[in-house]
């Protein structure tokens, strides 16, 4: 990092806050953290206390109040804001305010216009269609009118029937939502109306917007992603490979991610898997070039069993699963890629410094999301106290967690009950599976809640699913 005269406000909590602070340390940058009363025992607070300098930790009323973050930024002398993921990561108004206020700060993420254009799923869909990038059939603008919604749903049912789909299904989702929240499936057109109304009122409550999208849900598919990185010039985006995020909870939430997206070297697919991977990275880069994408971002894809990819959406932020791509990536042959550090570096205006030819890939990575939840009960979150949490160190393992391993920890109810991200590397698919299981077997994770019920986690779920990874 050439200019280290920066201080980054970490506008997030938990694991990502820690990752951002670590990246800042690596780059020689100052940082400042925020936390809420509920979160005072979180690891990110501890790290800020231990490693932050002057004015590096502030208690705020909410992570989701931009005024709090900016007041702290000014008070602490921050020069840039890293939004992490969630919260303000994809809020173009926040990014705009950060960069347009009188005391201008750098928003470590894409420019606000790009967030706005691509944050709008509809707009993205239209941009994609203009570049002849395939997208999922359905409405390409938020629907506010019940009759119109029903008409589109009907059309989608007919379309699927004509395609020979045995059990057609339509997906109703809040236009302003994302990340699996506010989405429901409808198998019966007669039930559509009530689902539509439910989603609409959910959307109104959560996002103050009644817009609803109606799409075809492609049932039998794999969920792939392309990791894009580009510097502020917006002219030379590169990709850091693909990921497969098909293993999800019943709430359509990701639970484990694998890089790369397919493994044609060890698995036989009914379609040309390598071509699909090449196509989606090419499509993604084409779109990034078209809009002048200027930070990290993820293009999310659906790949059907017959090998047809459809663009789902673009996430204009660093994602939870960035580490698994970094794990298998090599820049100029070197391991130890840190996409968050890269994001901060290009975010602060440094040129990327390498191009696609300098990026190579080695082996297979798995990311496990360790979550206190009950997979047998529709993945309902478990809330309580974690009493013992620990793992054995390996050179093929990276752990990211805000949960302290030396003291007990109460899971706050305000946020998702994510405990840790475990990233496993293996030189090939079979080795990574072995490593993964080894890790899960060695993991210590126990606790109790007020009712005396012992901790529920998704470890078993992850273990079982490890056998199935990258199979289609």
């Amino acid at each position, binding site marked *: 990092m050439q200019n280290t005269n920066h201080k980054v406000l970490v506008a997030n909590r938990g694991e990502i806050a820690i990752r951002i602070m670590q990246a800042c340390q690596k780059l020689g940058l100052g940082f400042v953290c925020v936390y809420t009363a509920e979160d005072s025992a979180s690891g990110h607070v501890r790290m800020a206390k231990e490693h932050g300098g002057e004015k590096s930790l502030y208690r705020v009323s909410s992570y989701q109040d931009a005024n709090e973050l900016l007041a702290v930024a000014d008070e602490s002398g921050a020069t840039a804001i890293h939004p992490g993921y969630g919260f303000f990561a994809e809020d173009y108004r926040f990014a705009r305010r950060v960069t347009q*206020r009188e005391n201008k700060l750098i928003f470590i993420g894409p420019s606000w216009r790009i967030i706005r254009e691509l944050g709008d799923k509809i707009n993205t869909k*239209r*941009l994609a269609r203009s570049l002849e990038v395939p997208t999922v059939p359905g409405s390409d603008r938020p629907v506010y009118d019940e009759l119109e919604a029903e008409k589109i749903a009907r059309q989608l049912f007919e379309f699927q029937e004509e395609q020979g789909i045995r059990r057609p299904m339509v997906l109703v989702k809040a236009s302003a939502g994302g990340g699996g929240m506010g989405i429901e499936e409808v198998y019966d057109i007669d039930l559509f109306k009530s689902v539509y109304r439910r989603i609409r009122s959910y959307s109104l409550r959560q996002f103050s917007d009644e817009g609803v999208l109606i799409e075809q849900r492609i049932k039998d598919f794999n969920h792939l992603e392309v990791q894009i990185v580009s510097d502020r010039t917006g002219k030379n985006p590169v990709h850091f490979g693909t990921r497969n995020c098909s293993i999800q909870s019943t709430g359509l939430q990701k639970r484990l991610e694998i890089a790369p997206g397919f493994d044609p070297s060890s698995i036989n697919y009914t379609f040309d898997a390598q071509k699909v991977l090449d196509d989606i990275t090419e499509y993604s880069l084409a779109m990034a070039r078209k809009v002048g994408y200027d930070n990290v971002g993820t293009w999310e894809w659906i790949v059907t069993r017959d090998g047809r990819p459809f663009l789902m959406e673009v996430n204009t932020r660093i994602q939870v699963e960035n580490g698994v791509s970094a794990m298998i990536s090599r820049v100029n042959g070197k391991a130890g890629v840190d996409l968050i550090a890269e994001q901060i570096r290009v975010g602060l205006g440094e040129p990327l410094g390498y191009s696609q030819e300098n990026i190579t890939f080695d082996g297979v990575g798995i990311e496990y999301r360790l979550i206190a939840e009950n997979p047998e009960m529709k993945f309902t979150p478990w809330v309580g106290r974690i009493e013992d949490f620990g793992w054995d160190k390996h050179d093929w393992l990276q752990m990211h967690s805000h949960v302290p391993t030396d003291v007990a920890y109460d899971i706050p109810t305000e946020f998702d009950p994510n405990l840790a991200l475990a990233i496993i590397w293996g030189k090939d698919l079979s080795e990574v599976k072995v490593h993964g299981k080894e890790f899960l077997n060695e993991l210590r994770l126990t606790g109790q809640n007020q009712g005396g019920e012992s901790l529920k986690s998704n470890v078993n779920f992850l273990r079982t699913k490890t056998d199935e990874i990258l199979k289609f």
Partner: protein
Amino acid sequence: MDTEKRTQHLTERLTYIKDIFGDKQQENIRLLETKLEEFIQRENGLSVEDKFAALSTLEDLFGFVERNLENELTAMDKVRIVRHSQRICLRDILENVYDNYTEIGGKDENSIDPSMLIARAYITRRSGKRVYHQPVMVIGQEKGHGEEFRNGGSVKPWGNAKALHYMRVAETENIPVHTFVFTPGSFPVEDAPGAAQQIAKNLYEMAALSVPVVAVFSEGGSGGAEAIGLADSRLMLSHGYYSVISPEGAAAIEGRVRGGDRAGAELVEKCAHQLKITADDNVRMGYIDHKIQEPALGARPYHYEFFRSLRQEVIRATDEVVLNVKGFSPFRAMALRRRKGKSIEDLDLENIHVRWSLSRKARARLIAKRHAKFNKLSKSAFIDRRPIHRRVAAWFVEKGWDTYSYFKYDLWRSHQKKLMYAVEEVDAEARVLMDKVKGPWKKITKAIPANTSKADKEKELTMLSQWDEEDQGKGQWSYISPRAKEDRAITCPNAETHGCQDLWAPDLFGEYAGVCNSCGHHFPMEYQWYMHNIFDPGSIFEFNTEVESANPLGFEGFDLKLEQAKNKTGLKSSCTTFEARINNVKVVVATLIAPFRGGTVGAAEGEKFVQAAERAKKKRFPFISYVHGTAGIRIQEGVNGVIQMPRCTMAVRRYIDAGGLYLVLYDTNSYAGPLASFLGCSPYQFAIRSSNIGFAGPGVIKETTGMDIPPDYHRAQKALSRGHIQGIWDRRDARHNLSQALMTMGGRNLYYR
């Protein structure tokens, strides 16, 4: 009369004088007091004859002093006279002016509103040997000599509704209406039908009431007076007042008095003088046709002579109105004419007979005359900087439009309609025929699956529309508030109840258009926002910019205030009138702009409004009143302002009767006179969510009624619940909704239909 009663009577006269003059005229009062006292002291010792003689002397002295004091009366003294419980009231008039009457719909407190009195009465006249009973509908406020339930003549909305109802009855019965204005102002409650909205309805209906209306003003308090004051002949008692606001109210505003405090007596006196509220003032300015002389210090129930002359005056006024619209009756008209040196008693009115019922044609003339009468008023109360040749040219252009409109819309349209009708008929016939022919074929084609449909459907579902530049423009407004340039956060007033976070001013006043993104609270926006974001870009063409607000009463200090307002806003009056387009539909718009003297309406604003309505009528454009905000009638213009209530309402009436669509859109705070007339009379009133709509503000309500009102009393939602407005719009949808309204509402003669 026995001595006791006469003494009592003198005591009352003394109290009356004291009440009227207060601290003033101490010497005269003391004189009368001592003399009366002396008489009472020695009364018992006197013989009956001496008592009578002493009393007569005393009565003469009272009369002498009263006549002297009469010349000293100030405007404020007259206000006190009018408000005095000894002043004649409507029932005295019914007893003494009319030959017989029946009160309609109420007895004392058992009435829907005891402060509004309705009576069917008649006047008996002789012509030769014949006797005529001429029925009239008498309508007026009853102050009832201070009876509490009369509410001081402050009429509730339903009282005004009752008045309107019986005006309509009079119309059906083809009898004249005599109204008697005895009100300090309307009772400012919003309960349905609503103070302002009901007055507006009254004005709107009276604008085309097809029977003669004669109004007699004793106490003409602003909007309350107008509710029954729109008349063909407007008479005024010499000791009455007719004003835009009570002198105390004006003083409170002038002196910037807040809360329960009161302005000093001196300031009140000064305001009363400056507002030009007396009968002489109003006759001079043309707002009153004729003054009726009262006895010294004002008429009281024992002034029987006065009632006789009042009777003559109302008869003559009614006769004049009728004869002016009847065909040929020169002799009777001549007999009625006012001449110098001739008093009304010299006319033998009782023996002239004029039929007061009117033919259909005479009714039409009556209304036309009424409109012409009001249209002429207040023409010199504003500045018109248009050079003469432009005014003449404008007149010709307007006449030209008349002819053009006739050819374009009436003549051509009626032919076109016939043609369209024919085409539609043929088309419908043809369709039935085609269906019969095509029926079997359709069945066959349906059975064969179309081979193109699948690809089409996929295309439709995956390629619905293209990403284009138009999509980049969302969240962008043509006009951005200057407040959007400030880097600061703003707290939503609903933050506590709705959990709204502070909003960043550039977001709030820019992209959000002043709407809280969490709870939808509407912050007030500048009028320019609407000008630029509602109408098609670049389509605004302003007219009559040279008409300027003035200071017609020479109200002290007002020239400066007016100058400041003009400099601050760059406007010449609070009313801007322009032509514009909404989705290519041409409209005429009159706005009231809050930053210019609170959006108050005076003669210039009224004139611009009237001309805009005329223009819309001639061009057959929809007419929109966009009310950015108005605090009411401009008090510093006095009756020059108040008269805009009937004037503008009549212009609206002409426009609507000519087949136009009149839409009102409220934005921030709209109160008082304008609402109680030319705004409130629209059948299509909409409000942006930021609006407060009402007759009087919370302070005035507290002062006049003693009631505490809830903070949301005037909110648009309440107005909608009460039925005062027809809908509430989100600011961001205003353009779309207005466009939609133009397509779906009212008006048979709009060119685009």
